[in-house]
């Protein structure tokens, strides 16, 4: 099979599929990256992993109970009908699944083959996979489920995810003459599923690993309608089954012992109370749940606590916070001002003090846990262009209308205020103070809600933008092309426009060897830094706590924690409970 990720037409189609279902571009890119086979090289300092699996013995199976909070009440567990119902994905098993590296690997389909140059997929299903009521899981289940998702009568809001299937779109949009039977999914027998696509689509197994490919149990749907995912009615085929669902209160999942596929959960039971993100830590500390998200504001306390500090997992968010000055607006239309800004920001102070070390100072765009990261120690031009030095900052203003820090116009820094529990507001204020101290430039701060912010950003109506880029796929192209490349037709994120930079990025993408590509990307980064296009501030980390008796959080091939933060949902299938002091005896 040829690599579909090298085929722009297929990548574009895949992007459209993802967009149609509201899948964030980031998630889309992560899937894409996994498919392209690029892998992460870890170079992140200060990331605390969990304690290495202690010698403590696993507790008996009856006590393998994990209390894992849900942040919001799911609207259902019917992924067929509503991809983003917020339900439990691990109740179901699709044809393929994601591994901790976000690669699609066999699941209910033990193997598959492609025919007609990738336009035809034949999935061979495992025999012996059963629904929780004892029915066998067959190719007919998948055929029916995909058709259900595409059926306009189902009114599935994200059916476009399956539009690659032949006649899928036509059937969904009620094109005359296109009936259910013409949709390109067909069970050749009980264990062979043939999928005919509109044209070759190398990424189809990835679509099948996503929630979009999960099946539904036909008899239950037909019997109970919308109520089929209630605890009393639900029939599932995955590693977990739901035994309790007290609405807005809690859910209980139990291991499906009849499930024959790997990975088989080591836990026997998961109790999932519904607790808003901001209340999770308190509940965790009260001993009522076994893991929780940690806001930065709580970190110092946790770190200084001898007990809690051992429970902290810090993982890289693989992203970059940066300042983007508007090229066409005063005073940033002057290169010296943009350069001065780079020298006026004390990134070490921001990371060490304001962020309490939860991050790493950034001088260039590509974060340290992604390939193509440029170590400032190795490249002297990074220091020359970005070093924190108030005197150098003032020097940059020489010869500009703002020499000596005078005659500044009104400047507004805009940031998103609805993220990371107030952290951006703190960093923005630190930047405000540094710019005032070092350049005598007073800036106003403006915190906007995400949707408004994005709108303004793409209209280029932000004077000084403080924003982050979470990386999508581990390649510098993700940063330099998607954010800064200006020769494209669609809307661009920032105003920066530079033909030479664009050329470097184009050349880098097409360069034959990895080393040549990295060298070209480095040149591109240098070009934009010397033009002051952006001031990179820091690479953010995230934090979670796990009770000491929870072990086995998976890691990806780079040795970093594969938290179920983005698309990989498999953490509950991997963790297990060991004997540790304070563990409640649950069953």
């Amino acid at each position: 099979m040829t690599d579909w990720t090298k085929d722009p037409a297929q990548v574009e189609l895949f992007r459209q599929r993802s967009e149609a279902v509201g899948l964030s571009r980031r998630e889309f890119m992560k899937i894409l990256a996994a498919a392209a086979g690029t892998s992460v090289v870890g170079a992140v300092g200060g990331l605390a992993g969990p304690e290495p699996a202690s010698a403590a013995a696993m507790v008996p199976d009856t006590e393998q109970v994990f209390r894992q909070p849900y942040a919001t009440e799911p609207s259902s567990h019917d992924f067929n009908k509503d991809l983003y119902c917020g339900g439990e994905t691990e109740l179901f098993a699709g044809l393929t699944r994601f591994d901790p590296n976000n690669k699609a690997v066999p699941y209910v389909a033990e193997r598959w083959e492609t025919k007609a140059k990738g336009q035809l997929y034949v999935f061979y299903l495992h025999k012996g996979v059963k629904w929780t009521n004892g029915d066998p899981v067959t190719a007919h289940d998948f055929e029916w489920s995909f058709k259900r998702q595409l059926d306009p009568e189902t009114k599935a809001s994200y059916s476009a995810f399956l539009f690659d299937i032949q006649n899928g779109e036509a059937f969904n949009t009620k094109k005359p003459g296109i009936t259910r039977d013409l949709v390109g999914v067909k069970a050749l027998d009980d264990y062979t599923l043939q999928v005919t696509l509109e044209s070759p689509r190398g990424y189809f197994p990835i679509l099948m690993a996503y929630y979009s490919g999960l099946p539904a149990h036909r008899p239950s749907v037909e019997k109970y309608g919308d109520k089929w995912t209630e605890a009393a009615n639900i029939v599932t085929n995955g590693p977990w089954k739901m035994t309790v669902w007290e609405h807005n209160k809690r859910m209980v999942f139990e291991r499906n012992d009849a499930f024959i596929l790997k990975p088989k959960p080591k836990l026997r039971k998961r109790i999932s109370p519904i607790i808003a993100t901001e209340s999770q830590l308190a509940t965790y500390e009260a001993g009522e749940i076994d893991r929780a998200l940690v806001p930065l504001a709580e970190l110092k306390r946790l770190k200084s606590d001898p007990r809690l500090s051992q429970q902290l997992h810090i993982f890289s968010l693989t992203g970059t916070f940066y300042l983007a000055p508007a090229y066409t607006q005063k005073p940033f239309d002057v290169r010296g001002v943009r350069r001065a800004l780079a020298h006026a920001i004390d990134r070490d102070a921001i990371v060490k003090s304001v962020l309490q070390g939860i991050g790493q100072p950034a001088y260039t765009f590509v974060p340290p846990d992604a390939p193509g990261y440029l170590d400032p120690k190795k490249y002297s031009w990074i220091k020359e262009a970005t070093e924190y030095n108030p005197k150098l900052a003032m020097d940059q203003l020489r010869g500009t209308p703002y020499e000596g820090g005078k005659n500044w116009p009104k400047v507004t820094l805009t940031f998103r205020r609805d993220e990371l529990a107030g952290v951006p507001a703190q960093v923005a204020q630190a930047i405000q103070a540094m710019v005032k101290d070092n350049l005598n430039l007073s800036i106003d701060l403006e915190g906007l809600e995400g949707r408004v912010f994005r709108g303004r950003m793409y209209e280029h109506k932000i004077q000084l933008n403080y924003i982050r880029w979470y990386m999508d796929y581990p390649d510098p192209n993700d940063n330099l092309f998607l954010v800064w490349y200006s020769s494209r037709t669609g809307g661009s994120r920032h105003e920066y426009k530079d033909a030479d930079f664009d050329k470097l990025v184009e050349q880098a993408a097409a360069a034959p060897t990895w080393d040549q590509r990295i060298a070209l990307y480095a040149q591109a980064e240098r070009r934009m830094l010397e033009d002051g296009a952006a001031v990179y501030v820091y690479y953010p980390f995230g934090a979670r706590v796990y009770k000491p008796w929870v072990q086995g959080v998976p890691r990806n091939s780079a040795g970093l924690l594969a938290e179920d933060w983005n698309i990989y949902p498999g953490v509950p299938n991997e963790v297990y409970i060991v004997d540790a002091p304070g563990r409640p005896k649950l069953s």
Partner: protein
Amino acid sequence: MRETLAPIPPAGQPVEARAPSLRRLHRQTGFWHDALRRLLRNRLAVVGAVMVATILLVAATADILTPYPYAKTNFAHGYESPNARYPLGTDPLGRDLLSRMIYGARISMIVGVGSQVLVILIGVPIGAMAGYFGGRLDLYLMRVVDVMYAFPTLLFVILIMSALGAGLFNIFLAIGVTGWVTLCRLTRGQFLALREQEFIMGARAVGATSWQVILRHLLPNALAPIIIAVTFGVPRAIFTEAALSFIGVGINPPLPSWGGMVGEYQPYLRSYWYMATFPAVAIGLTMLSFSFLGDGLRDALDPTLRR
């Protein structure tokens, strides 16, 4: 204020009552004099008044009192608990919280008092005109007031702030534009009741113009309820500002306001209790002081309500 108001007779008495020729009174015990006496006898009101005076003093002398500039960052000293150098600790940027509290008092007072000035400037003239002239003018003005009443106040304020953007002046405007209706109705009610009184007829009879009647006779007599309303309006405005800053549409950073501080430091509460606690207590105490004073003033100025 007291000096100019002192000679005004109690409501309902003809102006001539204070004519020296009558010599009915053994000593001068004017309405305002009595009111002050009643106020001073009310312990809670005195406590409130003293606290309000203190806060006003702190606000006025903030520049002298603050040990550090309110926006001065010191990254080496971020997140510090209260200590000798920083009596109330520091915030994540190493800014002195005591200095920010003191400056916050100024912002709160400016917002509280400033917005009430705007409320008076809009509410009283409109209420006065409606009440005095009556008729169609009254009808139309009161319908406008009804419409304004129909909006949920805080929502309307947030709407205005979102449209205008954060900032001190915009907060004045938002609170002023939404807050005047209550005072307007109050003034109108007073004027309606007073304009039929004999001393007003008397004033008209001796040739006073409408403006003279309104400014010299009606307004002074309607002043007591207005003062009470404004006294309660100040803490309401402070609280509105606090709420706005809490949700991030109030004062622009780095300018500190108590509400903004509570909002900004609230996520840190469990790790650094002192950051949000002191401004929250300050808001509470200020509200309480004004409420005590307001209650006291109402008792003092409107004796009929007592007991």
